[in-house]
């Protein structure tokens, strides 16, 4: 996929995005701007609507109002699979993997799809050297070489979490949405995940949804705070940390911060 220069200086932009479930406004007038190459975090207390925003961005659900722009291009009504082709990929807070496939097959599949070979029903999967080499690179980058031939469902949780990120990364996104990448990972395996996330290439714009403040402040160069479905404030990590209102609604709550 070509990384053509877009018309916008923002990799990702939402304009007054709204989503109502019945009477509840899960997302309310959210106008978010993520700069190209940014390490942007979206934080907020439980139930603030962080995952709803990710679902809107990835196309899993449709907004009630507002627009979503990827590199200036309106993708509000694009199908989820189209958005991935256009360069926005996501991970899931709860692993969404293919339990019967191995990591090799999973990554090979994502790369074939990206190369437009997914409808190819005649060729045997995995005979292309370019795909094989790329799968190898991904396995190394995400520390999965030791388990590459095992069924995904039987992998340790930490490895599954790495595959979760590797799979989104295999789509070669310009914008990568990470939904709590370290969620549920035991303390011992946490660092390897965070290192992997920190080592993502600089030209990939990352929007991180996170609950854990340590991760956010070690990773992000820009933070947006979401409260009750609305954007509460945005700023540098220092500004957010210093803001007494944020402390009141979020840090002060003593969630797992």
């Amino acid at each position, binding site marked *: 996929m070509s990384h053509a220069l877009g018309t916008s200086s923002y990799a990702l932009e939402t304009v007054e995005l709204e989503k109502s479930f019945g009477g509840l406004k899960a997302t309310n007038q959210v106008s978010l701007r993520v700069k190209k190459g940014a390490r942007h975090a979206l934080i907020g207390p439980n139930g603030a609507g962080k995952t709803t925003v990710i679902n809107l961005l*990835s*196309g*899993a659900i449709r907004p009630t109002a507002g627009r979503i722009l990827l590199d200036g291009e309106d993708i509000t009504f694009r*199908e*989820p*699979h*189209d958005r*991935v*082709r256009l360069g926005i*990929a*996501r991970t*899931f807070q709860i692993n*969404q*993997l*293919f*339990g*019967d*496939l*191995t990591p*090799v*097959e*999973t990554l*090979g*599949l*994502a790369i*074939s*799809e*990206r190369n437009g*070979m*997914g*409808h*190819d*029903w*005649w*060729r*045997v*999967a*995995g*005979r292309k*050297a370019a795909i*094989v*080499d790329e*799968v*190898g690179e991904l*396995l*190394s980058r995400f520390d999965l*070489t030791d388990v*590459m*031939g095992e069924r995904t469902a039987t992998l340790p949780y930490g490895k599954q979490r790495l595959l979760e990120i590797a*799979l*989104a990364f*295999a*789509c070669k996104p310009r914008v990568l949405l990470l939904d709590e990448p370290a969620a549920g990972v035991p303390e011992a395996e946490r660092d390897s995940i965070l290192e992997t996330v920190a080592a993502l290439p600089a030209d990939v714009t990352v929007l991180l949804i996170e609950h854990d403040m340590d991760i956010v402040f070690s990773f992000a160069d820009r933070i947006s705070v979401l409260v009750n479905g609305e954007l509460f404030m945005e700023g540098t990590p220092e500004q957010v940390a210093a803001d007494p209102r944020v402390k009141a609604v979020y840090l002060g709550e003593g969630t797992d911060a």
Partner: protein
Amino acid sequence: MSAPTSPLSFDVAEQMAKRTRWTPLEIAFWIAAFATIYFLPGRHLILTEIVIWALFALSLDLILGFGGILSLGHAAFFGVGAYAAGLLAKHGIITEPVLALLVAGLAATVLGFVTSFLVLRGSDLTRLMVTLGVSLVLREIANRYSDITGGADGLQGITMAPVLGLFRFDLFGHTAYIYSLVVLFVLFLLARRIVNSPFGLSLLAVRGNPLRASAIAIPVNWRLVAIYTVAAGYAGIAGGLLAQTTAFASLEVFSFDRSADVLLVLIIGGIGYLYGGLIGAVIFRLMQDWLANITPQYWQFWIGLVLVIIVLIGRDRMGAWIRPVRDLIDTLGGRLRIRASGGER
């Protein structure tokens, strides 16, 4: 395949090829199947029935095992294929059986494509009802236009031309069996190829997790349309084979019983590895035959009991019982292969 550029790539290529390799067990299966041509000449009639059930169940496996679509009306496509083949032969439109069979399959394929859009949305229950509905509608259409289909009396007076103009259908069903078995084998090879392609892998992903599949750029609905259409063609060819080998087609080809039985066959043999339908057909038909001899009136009691046991125990656990045997055979086969390849590593 171009040479891998590193040891890691070599391992990756190995792992990717794993699923596509022929295991010794598979080869033995087909040798045994073809051996029946010579060793069981007196059983060719029932074997032909088994082959047709096998092909029909293979077709259902493509949509259930690889598309995750549960159908209770798969006889719709079987029936269309049967009547298409029957009518082509009866009216002498296409007399050569192989060509007629392809056309029958094509007719079912078209119907499969059109109706595939009905099964894209909704739950398993919706899909069950929609597929069932389609087969009932077709059955009544065939019933209504009895001047074409023969209605309740069935399509009679079919005379079959020799296969490829060379092999005449005989009274003992030898030609019919060989013809059916070759058709099954060719279509099995094609299905195996499809399932092991990038497209096939994407189907496994869609079945396993449609949410994630669409999140890695897989157009889920189009993949389901594609496999449903292909599977309908397979079912049509199975139906066509029945009409050709029995020189008859009746409304029964559309029946609910047939749709339910094929699901039963597939579940007996196991879903999602292509051989399930084949093995299931052998077990189902032989069991039916055997039980009907012992207890002509109540044989379905035993079929029902077996079904309940299979579903309750679960095929996974039964698979676990035979896994040690399978692993052993695979290991032995692997050694032989390494020796045969002369240490290419």
